[in-house]
């Protein structure tokens, strides 16, 4: 799932400065799972902002609500009543949710309260690690389920650089292990080392702009006029 973390309170309070009625809008999706922007976190943020406002002698009023997923217009309809009663919205969704909210209510200022970080896995409660950089060209079939784009510091495609330490660590340090050593060891254990013997062409990193996905089987449902080609 998408992982995010809350922006510094100073940055958040600065973005909503000057607005009288602020709605802190939580998201029940990914940012709720990573404990950054769910119901509890949106309530906490509203409380924190209230304290900042009180300390600054402001009469700013904060309220909080949470929708199931801010990235789906269906769920945003439920919040339209509350939206009408506020001067701006502080969203604790990911970047996609913030933009969807802005598009749904174009006359309303919408500010992000989170920094969206990565697609990752849950290691433990409150501990997450990046596993996917959504490069649109998945290599995991050849690399033993270990992503070189995400887990190699240089995103190398054809084996390690010269920076692998004797203990198997990466030269960048920070406790990171060499992704290519892990790939090698896993494929060797599976008897599939041949899958990394052939050279892979470099990734096409050309910026393709905002992508649109029409899932296989749904092509007939969306006409060319509705969905622009990616």
């Amino acid at each position, binding site marked *: 799932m998408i992982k995010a973390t809350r922006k510094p309170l100073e940055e958040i309070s600065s973005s909503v400065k000057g607005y009288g009625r602020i709605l802190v809008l939580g998201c029940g999706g990914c940012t709720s799972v990573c404990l950054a922007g769910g119901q509890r976190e949106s309530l906490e943020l509203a409380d924190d902002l209230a304290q900042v406002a009180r300390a600054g002698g402001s009469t700013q009023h904060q309220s909080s609500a949470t929708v199931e997923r801010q990235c789906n217009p269906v769920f945003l309809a*439920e919040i339209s009543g509350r939206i009408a009663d506020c001067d701006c919205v502080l969203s604790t969704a990911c970047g996609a949710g913030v933009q969807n909210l802005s598009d749904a209510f174009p006359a309303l200022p919408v500010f992000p309260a989170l920094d969206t970080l990565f697609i990752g896995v849950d290691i433990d409660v409150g501990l997450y690690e990046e596993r996917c950089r959504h490069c649109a060209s998945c290599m995991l079939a050849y690399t033993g389920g270990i992503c070189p784009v995400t887990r190699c510091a240089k995103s190398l495609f054809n084996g390690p650089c010269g920076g692998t330490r004797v203990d198997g660590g990466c030269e960048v340090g920070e406790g990171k292990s060499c992704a290519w050593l892990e790939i090698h060891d896993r494929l060797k254990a599976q008897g599939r080392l041949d899958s990394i013997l052939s050279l892979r062409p470099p990734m096409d990193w050309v910026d393709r702009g905002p992508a649109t996905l029409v899932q296989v089987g749904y092509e007939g449902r969306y006409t060319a006029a509705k969905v622009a080609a990616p």
Partner: protein
Amino acid sequence: MKTTATKAAPVNAEVLDLVRRRRKLVKLSLGACAHCALCAESCFKYRNSGQDPTYTPSYKAINTIGKIVKRRGRLSPGEYEKVRELAFDKCVLCMRCRCPVGVDLPYLISLARSACREVGIERGYLEGKNA
């Protein structure tokens, strides 16, 4: 047999507002439900639960927002806890449940979640417990 009555919590104003706004829609939707259980087949939670009927999308809608609307939000904390279990634990809101009559089951379940949130109940992600 002596029974212990469960004390309903004071009605939350936001829940009451939600019920007022969506009462007709919920009643129409659940009134149209033919109890055919065809929606069950489109729910992966139902299929993976050994076909436990409480995972059937229609069951979840009827016993969450259906109950909330019918009782105008006057549910006891224990009853809200059962609603939470159905709307949060037994549904991931993947929106894939299909009703041949056209009842928007995901939307109904999302309404139940909204009501739960208004009374301070949500899915917990801290060590798997309701936080």
